[in-house]
């Protein structure tokens, strides 16, 4: 799917890039869903610059939307509007898609994927798995695992033996206790009431 709303990072903050050929209401809906899905990604108070081609009415709508998410809004005056071209097209993986890795993730190796990740092997100390969706490890997990990296608080981490030094879900980070006992069964980590909970799970 071609993105009609794209955030581009620059030294001065985030630049909002809007496809001018798309209806403005469509853009607003897209922007809203984008912000909702990734609110953790944007730090509060981040400066957002918008293209100068918009009308005053449109700008007002935009700024009220952005401010609702705690983002500061600035009108862009100097830069010409950037229209996403075919080359700059940005494919975002479906949340239903998953990446299956059938090997051991060793120290120094990292897997970064926008959807869910399934590792058929171990994640060794120093190895990292960063996924937009859930992470399932059919083996021992001793490295760092980050599920819901783009802010999905419903993401889970499941491992046959969850011995991770650290697990991260969305914006939350949980550290393992200093004396970690060997788990006897598969465990799953998830967020409940703002805390990372680890509970027995079933791997299939």
């Amino acid at each position: 799917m071609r993105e009609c709303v794209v955030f581009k990072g620059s030294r001065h903050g985030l630049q909002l890039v809007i496809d001018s050929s798309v209806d403005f209401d469509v853009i607003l809906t897209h922007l809203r869903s984008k912000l909702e899905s990734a609110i953790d990604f944007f730090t509060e108070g981040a400066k957002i610059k918008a293209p100068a081609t918009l009308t005053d009415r449109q700008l007002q709508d935009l700024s009220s939307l952005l401010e609702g998410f705690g983002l500061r809004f600035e009108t862009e005056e100097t830069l010409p509007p950037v229209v996403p071209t075919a080359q700059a097209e940005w494919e975002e993986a479906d949340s239903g898609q998953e990446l299956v890795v059938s090997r051991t993730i060793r120290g120094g190796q990292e897997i970064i994927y926008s959807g869910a990740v399934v590792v058929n092997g171990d994640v060794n100390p120093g190895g990292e798995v960063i996924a937009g969706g859930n992470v399932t490890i059919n083996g021992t997990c001793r490295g760092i695992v980050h599920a819901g990296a783009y802010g999905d608080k419903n993401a889970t981490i499941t491992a046959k033996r969850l011995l991770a030094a650290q697990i991260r879900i969305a914006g939350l980070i949980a550290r393992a206790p200093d004396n970690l006992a060997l788990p006897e069964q598969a465990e799953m980590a998830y967020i409940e009431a703002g805390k990372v909970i680890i509970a027995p799970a079933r791997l299939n």
Partner: protein
Amino acid sequence: MGEVIVVTSGKGGVGKTTTTANLGTGFALQGKKVVLVDADIGLRNLDVVMGLENRIVYDLVDVTEGNCRLKQALIRDKRFENLYLLPAAQTRDKNAVNPEQMKQLTAELVQEFDIVLIDCPAGIEQGFKNAIAGADRAIIVTTPEVSAVRDADRIIGLLESAGKHDPQLIVNRIRPHMVKKGDMMDIDDINEILAIKLLGIIPEDEYIVVSTNRGEPAVSNPVSLAGEAYKNIVRRLLGEEVPLMTLKEEDGFFHRLKKLFKL
């Protein structure tokens, strides 16, 4: 056509050079034609461990730079006819050679020798990339310490991404009494993390220090336990089925007496 084997570890000081010297000598004892290549340019050591330091005229960098022919740089061992050493340069650094040159060099050596054994420098920089460039297979050396095992894991990952799969493992400097007390990682702990084929375990042996200082690899000494373990590894590398040594702590005179009489 022979085979190129690289001995590597990641962490320094775990016994790569000792292992290279002993495996090389072990292969020579088995009648193979062997060349040991010291890829640790700048910090050469293999020549000292082999007791061949005073015979060096040309080195690996001289060969790659065309200052001499390969044959001129090869040093024949003083004990074994079919064992040779290609020393590293002492005065240069690891950037004096590139992986392409190493590939060429090993390709040339492998025509002549049954076994080309490369002693890899510690670390994961240029020197490591050089050392593994021409290797057919890799032997990872680790000690039963968390830091060494971590680095070994990292090395296995790097070898994989360089297209070199199925490395084999040697666990060096095992102290049975510490393992028994639970103060030292045991083989299962290490296997759990690295999950690669175990080639052998080498017990801690004071004689290794003696042999290294004398420039006589322990493998040629019949009383050294470590030498015995290296001998077994050589046989495994040559395809023989040799069971792993059972490392019992020395539990007193009586036990040994019982063992002597097979009670």
